[in-house]
């Protein structure tokens, strides 16, 4: 369009200069505008890319890969591995019976001793970790067991005696072979092993002298289930559960010999490895006050030797005797990833991103990528049997009492919540918006339409936070009363209108001509005011009367559940908020029905009502559907109202009278607190992406429907 009308050389010099400047400006403007066009494309791309990239790790399975090899001083026997990269000390004992506390020397990539403590070779020493604190347990030759809490801070070692006790070095002619300490909230248990004989000393929390001793004979493994005060005894192909007195509670047959047993940090689940390659999770289930263990899941092909956990994550690390490691989702039992280490580690430690495996004179470090991917697709969408639950359930629970509990990310309750809120809103919005649209687009005169339509559309301008606030402050406290009045209103109104319809003609004919336009609206307004006044005045008395007449039980159906208070409030508040969307689009669709069709219908003798039902609505049908789809989309994406008036408890329940938490409200509640890059953060981004994608689907669907409307119009 910028054709140069006059060739440059024909212009005087000054004019040519001016022309050049104009051309330059024009080119500059073109580039600037085009740039902004590209920029909007970039913005859209970045928006989608960011949502996808932030939520993608949750969908990727974690993987382990070799990261580094750290040298370990020769002849050191690893008692307890530390998180080496976090400068946590690794405790070893060398051939001269010295205890060493090793830390990483980054220059040589070697573990060097920062502290050494000489000990007697006759003393037997083990180390263990509980709640992030390291403990040494030392057994002297004459049977004194000392438990020491150790802290290493800037190469200064402090060891505080936790407790000490005298233990018999042999029992029924069997020598003491091994021992374990279990700290619980009420009890500390000292587990002593004499070959196939186990003696459990139940100490009080203050470690005062042993009160109860349980002796268990002929067992291969035992596990103390402290929170339940039970002991799982493994012998042959059986698990026997006994209580702290040694009384047998229940027993279960297993398919093969037990190779390893581990306990979850919360202490209510057992991970059992069998010699035939089965790996199983058993969890405590509360049945009328009695805890019994049930097999939750089982995987094949894993002969577990040791099992490791990492705080705050669902994944568990299974190592077998030949040096295969596998990451398994502890909640669902899915195998997530596996790696062959090429050596059998003597000790394994898992600290979030790093897995340390100790060999003879080295420690191999393996990096775990995409650990948050241990929350699998099926954990997001299927029922999962979490520890502490009696059945598989959909649970959304991201805030935990401690690091040792796992977060539960089932999206089902949130999706149900969103859909429930949107459907409830449609129940209110569709009749209102649809009725109003028919009225203004079909029945009312042009005069009324031009005035009423912008007024109804003004509802869209009310900030949703204001609607939410008014609903929370005004409607919520009055909901019980409100519900009754509303029911009465819904019952009485059609009856009253039926009565009114009988005499409407005679009535209108008496009205002066100038008032006949829009009298219905005026009449309806008056009717609502009168009804509202009557219902607020006599509503309570009427309710009492009804209660007396029909009996209390009849009313308590809703009364018990707080009348589904939030349900009603959500339906009303959200319904009002989305009705202008539905109204405007429906109105446009109905109004857009060509006049010729309507007139043809009238000419054939159809009444206005017949024309409406058979012609207008049928023609406008795709438009109306698209309006409902968009209204649903708006309700689905609305945040403030659902956030303010629902109870925000995520229940996987379609019952409209229970509380709900919507996807949008969940984002507003949890995202500000979520740690960047954590599983929670990624799951939340996934929900944002879902909302985004849902909008596109709803919009496209509505657009397709509208196109059909357009095509339908083209025919006449």
């Amino acid at each position, binding site marked *: 369009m910028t054709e140069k009308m006059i060739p440059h050389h024909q212009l005087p010099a000054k004019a040519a200069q001016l022309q050049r400047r104009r051309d330059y400006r024009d080119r500059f403007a073109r580039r600037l505008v085009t740039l902004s*066009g590209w920029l909007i494309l970039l913005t859209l791309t970045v928006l989608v890319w960011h949502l996808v990239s932030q939520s993608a790790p949750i969908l990727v399975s974690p993987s382990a890969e070799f990261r580094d090899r750290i040298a370990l001083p020769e002849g050191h026997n690893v008692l307890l591995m530390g998180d080496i990269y976090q400068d946590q000390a690794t405790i070893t004992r060398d051939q001269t019976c010295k205890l060493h506390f090793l830390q990483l020397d980054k220059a040589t990539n070697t573990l060097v001793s920062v502290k050494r403590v000489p000990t007697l070779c006759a003393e037997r020493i083990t180390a263990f970790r509980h709640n992030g604190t390291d403990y040494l347990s030392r057994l002297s030759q004459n049977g004194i067991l000392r438990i020491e809490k150790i802290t290493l801070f800037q190469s200064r070692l402090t060891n505080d005696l936790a407790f000490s006790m005298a233990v018999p070095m042999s029992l029924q002619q069997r020598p003491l072979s091994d021992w374990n300490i279990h700290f619980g909230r009420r009890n500390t248990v000292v587990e002593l092993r004499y070959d196939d004989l186990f003696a459990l000393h139940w100490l009080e929390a203050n470690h005062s002298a042993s009160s109860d001793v349980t002796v268990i004979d002929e067992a291969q493994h035992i596990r103390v289930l402290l929170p339940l005060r039970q002991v799982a005894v493994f012998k042959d192909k059986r698990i026997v559960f006994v209580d702290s007195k040694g009384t047998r509670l229940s027993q279960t047959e297993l398919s093969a010999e037990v190779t390893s047993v581990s306990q979850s940090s919360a202490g209510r689940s057992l991970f059992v490895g069998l010699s035939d390659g089965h790996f199983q999770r058993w969890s405590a289930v509360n049945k009328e006050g009695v805890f019994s263990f049930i097999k939750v899941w089982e995987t094949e092909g894993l002969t577990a030797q040791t099992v490791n956990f990492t705080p705050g994550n669902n994944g568990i690390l299974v190592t077998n005797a030949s040096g295969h490691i596998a990451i398994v989702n502890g909640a669902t039992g899915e195998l997530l990833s596996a790696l062959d280490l090429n050596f059998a580690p003597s000790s394994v430690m898992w600290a979030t991103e790093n897995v340390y495996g100790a060999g003879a004179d080295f420690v191999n470090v393996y990096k775990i990528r995409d650990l948050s991917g241990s929350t699998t697709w099926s954990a997001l969408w299927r029922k999962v049997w979490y520890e502490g639950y009696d059945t598989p359930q959909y649970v959304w629970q991201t805030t935990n009492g401690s690091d040792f509990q796992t977060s539960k990310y089932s999206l089902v309750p949130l999706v149900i919540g969103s859909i429930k809120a949107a459907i409830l809103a449609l129940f209110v919005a569709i009749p209102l918006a649809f009725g109003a649209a028919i009225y203004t687009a079909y029945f009312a005169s042009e005069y009324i339409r031009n005035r*009423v339509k912008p007024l109804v559309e003004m*509802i869209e301008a009310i900030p949703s936070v204001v609607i939410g606030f008014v609903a929370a*402050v005004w409607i919520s406290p009055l909901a019980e009363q409100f519900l009754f009045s509303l029911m009465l209103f819904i019952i009485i109104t059609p009856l009253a209108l039926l009565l009114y319809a009988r005499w409407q003609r005679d009535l209108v004919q008496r009205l002066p001509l100038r008032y006949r336009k829009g009298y219905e609206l005026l009449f309806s307004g008056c009717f*609502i005011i009168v009804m509202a006044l009557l219902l607020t005045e006599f509503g309570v008395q009427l309710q009492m009367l009804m209660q007396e007449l029909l009996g209390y039980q009849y009313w308590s159906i809703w009364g018990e559940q707080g009348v589904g208070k939030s349900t009603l409030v959500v339906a009303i508040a959200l319904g009002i908020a989305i009705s202008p969307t539905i109204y405007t689009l429906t109105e446009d669709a109905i109004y857009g029905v060509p006049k010729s069709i309507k007139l043809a219908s009238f000419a054939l003798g159809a009444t206005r*009502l017949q024309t409406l039902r058979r012609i207008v609505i049928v023609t406008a049908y795709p438009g109306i559907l698209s309006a409902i789809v968009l209204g649903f989309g708006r309700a689905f994406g609305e945040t403030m109202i659902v956030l303010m008036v629902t109870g925000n408890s995520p229940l996987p329940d379609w019952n409209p009278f229970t509380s709900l938490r919507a996807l949008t409200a969940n984002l507003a509640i949890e*995202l500000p607190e979520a740690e960047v890059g954590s599983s929670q953060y990624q799951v939340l981004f996934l929900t944002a992406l879902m909302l985004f994608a849902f909008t596109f689907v709803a919009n496209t669907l509505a657009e397709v429907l509208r196109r059909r409307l357009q095509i339908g119009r083209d025919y006449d």
Partner: protein
Amino acid sequence: MIKWADSSAHRQSFAISMTALACAILLMTQIALLMFVLIRGSDYFWPHTVAQLTFKESETGQTQTLYVEPQVHSPNEDKWDALYYTSALAGIGDSLALRRSQIQAQVLASDIAVLVMHDGRRIFARPLSHNPSEEYSLTLFDEAKDKVTELTDEVDALRLGPLAGLHRQLALFDEQGVDPGAPMRQRLESQYHEYVAQVDGLNNQLSLYNLKVMSGSGAEYTLDIADIDRMYFPNRLGMSGKIWLAIKMFGDFVTEPPKQANTSGGVFPAIFGTVLMVMLMTVIVTPFGVLVAVYLSEYAPRNGLTSLIRIGVSNLASVPSVVFGVFGLGFFVYTIGSGMDSLFSTQSVSSPKMGAPNLFWAALTMALLTLPVVIVATEEGLRRVPESLRKGSFALGATQSETIWHTVLPMASPGIMTGVILAIARGAGEVAPLLLVGAVKFAPSLPIDGEFPFVHLDRQFMHLGVMVYEGAFQSQTIGQGASYMFASCMLLLFIVFVLNLLAVALRSRLKRQFDATL
């Protein structure tokens, strides 16, 4: 169906009435909502009468007297709600629910005063005497109040002027390690002490001015007049007096900061934050939105990519607002902001500046949210400019940019304005994304102040909508807290509605203008 309603005429009347009813319900709900907010909101400013109430306590059976403000909205006839302020110590009012039978006497005594304190407390009391032991009188109180204002101004002048300067200088000396015995330092210190003594003297004078009051239960308190913001006698006020006072209270409401944990005082920081955020947003969104619209309708080739952009933009308009908040937090704050922090930060700066939710990212997020509004409205405006005008401009030798700049854009300007105003209205009323990217319940300082560099875009800010949301969550559903929140709602509604009406007016002007040209 019943026989007498069987004729088609009756059915039609019925249908018309039903649809009209639906329409009326929508309209009435809107009106009821607005009226409710208006009434409850203006209730915050309206000086209510205060009664001296004598009643029997339900538990002990003792007779008690209190000054109370009867609540207007009590749902139950037999119950009687009232708001009362027990003592000078009570920050916010308490609510009292009594049965009618418990009430023994209720007197609207004309000498009960409402004392509005500077810290937001309100006290119902009867003024007794001034210090030193003068009988209370209104003129004397006014005189004392004037004197006190004078004195406080003096103190403030000293504090903010010479004292602050001296303090800064001394702090600088400390930093530089100047010897405490240095003569310059000693001179400054002596000056400093001199001023402190002056301030102390003034404060002593101030403390002489106090007011002895008696609460409803007969307890006596002494209040510093310097602490009293306003005193009025609600039962003596006529209608005009009440209106005047309500206007003054409204003035205070829009100019003062919130007090007593967002239950009394004003909303100035929230208005300021809202307006500033919206202004920033407008500055970002307008040029960008208009340029994109110009590109789409004037420059873009008619191909798949352009229609892809169009579809993207129109879909963007209906993406749930909270998703923009998520994007703003994840991309602007945590990705770009943190990146900027690590790029510019020196070792001394440890706290995140741009890597935390703040005003700038909030404005940018809202700009993204409102971008489709501006683009769509501008495009509509551009489409309405007749092709013949463009052709005419080209025929006169204008380049494309000149045509757009001098002919098309001026004609489309009402459309652009409509878009911008609708964007502003949307931006002012939208809360969900702000919960994620920077608005807070209480911000200690305004984003603009006297400190260098004066405009602090890296600060968090207060927002009217966020305040209302927080108010609902703190279940401030009774008493003064609720009134305060309703007043905030009213203000928010007012702002949004004025903007929307402006947009509607502009749009109809645009239509008329084109009807005239075509």
